[in-house]
């Protein structure tokens, strides 16, 4: 197993943990945390490829910076949404937020 495989395995595990959280947690904040984990797994991927394959290029680092920014924005918006959900519903259980069902 070379270095790249190790990084990718870690990142894949991290992504799977995040995905598991997104799909299973009932608490909206935990769900948000899962999304953050998935974004970070992607960031690790970028950095791993940069480190092992494209060391002379700066594009992966730029992507990672953008990814962190997106994660921050997402956290801010997500928390704001959750706050409003809490005000309306009195809790933040995602399974309760199903008014747009068919």
């Amino acid at each position, binding site marked *: 197993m070379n270095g790249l495989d190790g990084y990718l395995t870690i990142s894949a595990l991290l992504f799977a943990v995040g995905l598991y959280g997104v799909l*299973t947690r009932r608490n909206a904040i935990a769900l948000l945390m899962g999304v953050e984990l998935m974004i970070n797994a992607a960031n690790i991927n970028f950095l791993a490829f940069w480190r092992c394959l494209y060391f002379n290029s700066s594009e992966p680092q730029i992507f990672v910076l953008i990814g962190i920014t997106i994660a921050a924005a997402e956290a801010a918006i997500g928390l704001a949404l959750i706050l409003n959900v809490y005000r309306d519903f009195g809790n933040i259980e*995602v399974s309760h937020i199903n008014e747009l*069902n*068919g």
Partner: protein
Amino acid sequence: MTGFIHWLAWIPLLPLCAAIITGVMALARKSERAAPFITIAATLISLFISAAVLARFLGGTTQNHLEVSFHWLQAGRFSINLGVDLTHLAALMAVLVGLVSSLVQIYSIGYMHGDGGYGRYFAYLALFTASMLGLVVANNLFQLYVCWELVGICSYLLIGFWFHKKSAADAAKKAFVVTRFGDVGFMLGVLILSSFTGSFSYNQVEQTLSKVAIGAIQPPFFSPATFLAVAALLLFAGAVGKSAQFPLHIWLPDAMEGPTPVSALIHAATMVAAGVYMVARLYPIFLLSSFALGVIAWIGAITAFIAATIAIVQTDIKKVLAYSTVSQLGYMMIGLGVGGYVAGVFHLATHAMFKALLFLAAGSVIHAMGTNDLREMGGLHRKMPITSLTCLAGILALAGFPGFAGFWSKDEVLGVALSNGQTLIFVIGVLSAGITAFYSLRLWLMAFSGRPRSASAEHAHEAPAVMTIPLIILAIGALFGGLMNFPHPFIGSLLNPAEHEQINLVAMGLSTAVGLTGLAWAWLLYAKPEMAQDPVERMPVSLYRTFANLWGVDAFFTNGVARWALNIGRMVAWFDRHVVDGAVNGAAWMCGASGRTLRRFTNGQAQFYAAVMIVAILLAVWLVLGAMQPPNLTAAAPTRWAVTTTLGGRAR
């Protein structure tokens, strides 16, 4: 003449305008009292115009017709004109229609006084007059057909005028449905002729068909003779329905549910004569097929005989007259069928007058009595002398008493039949003439002579002048109607100068003798002050039953044709309900079912959506990668492969 011709279109248009005006007034329930004056004025003006045209023709103008027409519409290769074409025949008929219509409308002022539908009634009458005149003056088959159906509608509306009575509503439906049988044939005839000749115009159709007859043009599918016979008989089918010929005569007696003046105008004088008129107007077409003419003559003879026998046993005054109308229409058909064009039209003209008279007289009696039943009448002569005497004039005209209108025309029909070698038809005609004489005098004696047989007969009184004056005018027509063709053949020279019909003394003598025998027999049986039982009931029971059962024709239609049609209808309805509706409902159910299934996926759970998304992405990745069939996909190097695939050639 040039300025005059612009007036022709107003012959049908004036009554139409009157119908619209009075119709709106009747709908708005405003000034219904004024309605008859509008319609009568319109009818009189159009009568005046057509009478002026007829006077010109009689005055010996060189023109044999007056025509105005305009191009109405173009549909493919068909161009359809609307127009007025007053031939000698059309002018005569227009005068008859206008005359009877205006008299009936005047009479109706008295008869319909105080009826709830007063304005509506006159609007219908005016609409009828307009459509009938449109039919008479038509110069093409299309306009003929449209007006043909319009008079049918007016007949329906007026039979069912008292639609709150179930019998009247039923009779209206029956008239409409039964005439439809004939009208289907008529429509097919019009379509065959127009599509074959490429025109609706009478002249062009007749010219093309005469070329077919001499073999210059070959018709499709048929030999020329068959084609001409089929076309003529299809047209005649319409006349069978409209003119109540056997076996479609069954609607006319029921049509007596309408107001009596309507029976006089529509179901005696004009509309039922429309079939006869149509045959006469298109006579050049019928002349081309001797087979069709034979069928017409025989249908006429059968109708004349059967209807006359049924009339003997009727006890409803209007039913007697209705069957006698059917019978007389049969005579007109005999006349046309045996080649007596002038005779048929002459009988149409005299019949229009004396039958309108008889119906109006019957209306006067019904108005006074409140019942149609002859058995409850009697002794009315002293109570209502004008009605009685005018009715007697009509009766004698119908019976063919020497000198009266019906005598001349009926004998001319029979004379033509005899001299053209149709002996059997002649014999049937003479027999029916005897029966006619019997039942017509029976009607008069039962109603007017003897002692009153009910309280209402004792307290009857003469009708107002507005009703008796039309009676008197028509009685003059019934008395002197024969002058139209004898001794000077006005109608003959007007319609067909070539047809010099001599008075056939054998025919005249025979039919007069038989007619007088019928009259005498009726006199012997009925001219008694008291009448405990109707003498006709003493005739052989099998005969009586045949006549009273209307020869089983009605039963045949109700039990045979109607049941058959109902069963077919039920089958079609089943197919419609289960197969056609099933397909439509099935499609709707499938949409609903797929909707119900799919909406489960839209459950509002964001996590469920996310899971579906992930699964779908994985599926898509698996499909794309599977399609690529990676060459070195081993368990040891899955990531290497993933990297090379996703990043392309750069990594290699």
